[in-house]
């Protein structure tokens, strides 16, 4: 099995808190990895380090066997879908304009239509992005991420604030991308049920990694599920 990502002893220290503490795990080609953990567990911190947005970490991160401190070439193989893409609501770009931003090469223009069709967004291609619903916007950002034929798709809690119907469609798209197009998916989520249904591997993160392995092993271990649920429940109560 080809190792795509190798994370070794990753530690991120913020001034007041250790956001990640000695996190190590690997992702193999074709994996559908669900990263779960309560708010503040370090999921976004982990992604920032993996995407080269934060270089102040200890430990090593390798993509395709190469240390990301040495080369940024791995970014070409990554499609990234952020949690809630921030932009001005009246930003004058159409769906096509946004997807085009993902292109690295001007000659790939034909691909835009192809990807939009794949995501059932073709009819909305001339609409302004800010006019679309949260679910539609998220599909546009998936299209933008897919336009370069990435080997890995990284999604940071992509369904926050989206209606259930759009979430179901979104999940079926992810499943198809992983099973048919063999795209490796790394996805962080709050939704334990969705992770159970979609992911074949689970990483359970709360500053340290307290489980990483096949999702069946996680979900068949009542003790682990209970621990996770309690941790996130505490977090939930803490926030209210």
């Amino acid at each position, binding site marked *: 099995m080809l190792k795509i990502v190798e994370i070794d002893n990753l530690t991120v220290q913020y001034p007041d808190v250790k956001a990640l503490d000695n996190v190590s795990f690997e992702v193999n080609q074709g994996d559908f990895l669900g990263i779960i953990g309560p708010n503040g567990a370090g999921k976004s911190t982990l992604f920032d380090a993996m*995407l*080269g947005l934060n270089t102040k970490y200890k430990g090593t991160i390798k993509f395709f066997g190469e240390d990301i401190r040495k080369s940024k070439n791995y970014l070409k193989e990554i499609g990234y879908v952020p949690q809630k*893409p921030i932009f001005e609501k009246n*930003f004058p770009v*159409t769906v*096509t304009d946004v997807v085009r*931003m993902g292109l690295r090469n001007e000659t790939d223009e034909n691909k835009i239509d192809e990807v939009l069709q794949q995501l059932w967004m073709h009819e909305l291609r001339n609409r302004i992005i800010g*006019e679309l619903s949260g679910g539609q916007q998220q599909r546009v950002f998936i299209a933008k991420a897919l336009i370069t034929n990435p080997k890995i798709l990284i999604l940071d809690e992509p369904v926050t604030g989206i209606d259930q119907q759009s979430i179901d469609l979104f999940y079926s798209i992810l499943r198809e991308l992983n099973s048919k197009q063999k795209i490796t998916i790394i996805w962080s989520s709050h939704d334990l049920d969705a992770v159970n249904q979609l992911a074949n591997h689970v990483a359970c993160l709360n500053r340290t990694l307290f489980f990483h392995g096949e999702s069946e092993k996680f979900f068949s271990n009542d003790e682990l599920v209970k621990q996770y649920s309690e941790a996130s429940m505490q977090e939930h109560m803490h926030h209210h």
Partner: protein
Amino acid sequence: MSLEILTFSFMHRALISGIAIAILCSVVGLFLVLRRYSLFGDAIAHSSFGGIALGLLAGVYPLWTAYGVSIASALIITKIKDRYNISGDASIAVLLSSGIAVGLVIIGLSGGFTIDIFSFLFGSILLISVDDTVLILALTGVILIVILILYRQILYSTFNEEQAKVSGIPVEKINYLIVFMAGITVVTSIQLVGVLLISALFVIPNVTAIMYGKGFKQTAIISMSFSIFSVVVGILLSYIFDITPAGTIVLLAISLLAGTMGIKSSGLLSKN
């Protein structure tokens, strides 16, 4: 009277430079407006006032010193803003007032040269020379070519910095490039509308165009058209009625904005 004014060579120069500046300000301004940097043009213009005063004092052509001072202060303020985490609007306020302060002190030291300063404050497009026209056309051409080449990178980093970084775009360099181009654009445009009204050309046609809810290229084309219309009609009307071109141009741009608001609130402007 009506067509005769089009035969004057000073009018040719004014219209050619005016159209070039209209296009330039509208394109560079669109990126500034979308970055919530609308007043940045104003701040650079005010800092160029210090540069102009310096040039007049030193006996150098004032626009050259204005280019130097404006570009330098725009880049420095951007650096300071990033380093010390000062908000965008506060950094603009600092830049704006320091330019004027430097200018006033220099004018005071030199005993005052009010007439020359006046033409820079309010523009003097009808007095533009052949050399200035050539310079304006050359700078407009260079900046537009740079923007066309880097169009996707500039748009992407304006839309969402973080995603642009992940896509391998050198976002910080692009940010400095935009600030640098804004500096050049402002000083180049001083002759048309003057220091005090420059941000009108950066902001008003773009705010108007964005209201039409179109894609990026169409928005840019609408903005450029409004900008060119305001400048050309403004220059002609100001000559015919013997009023100041800068004020006329800006008022025309504002009336296009008001008209667009009217159309929009009446529901005539449907999306798509």
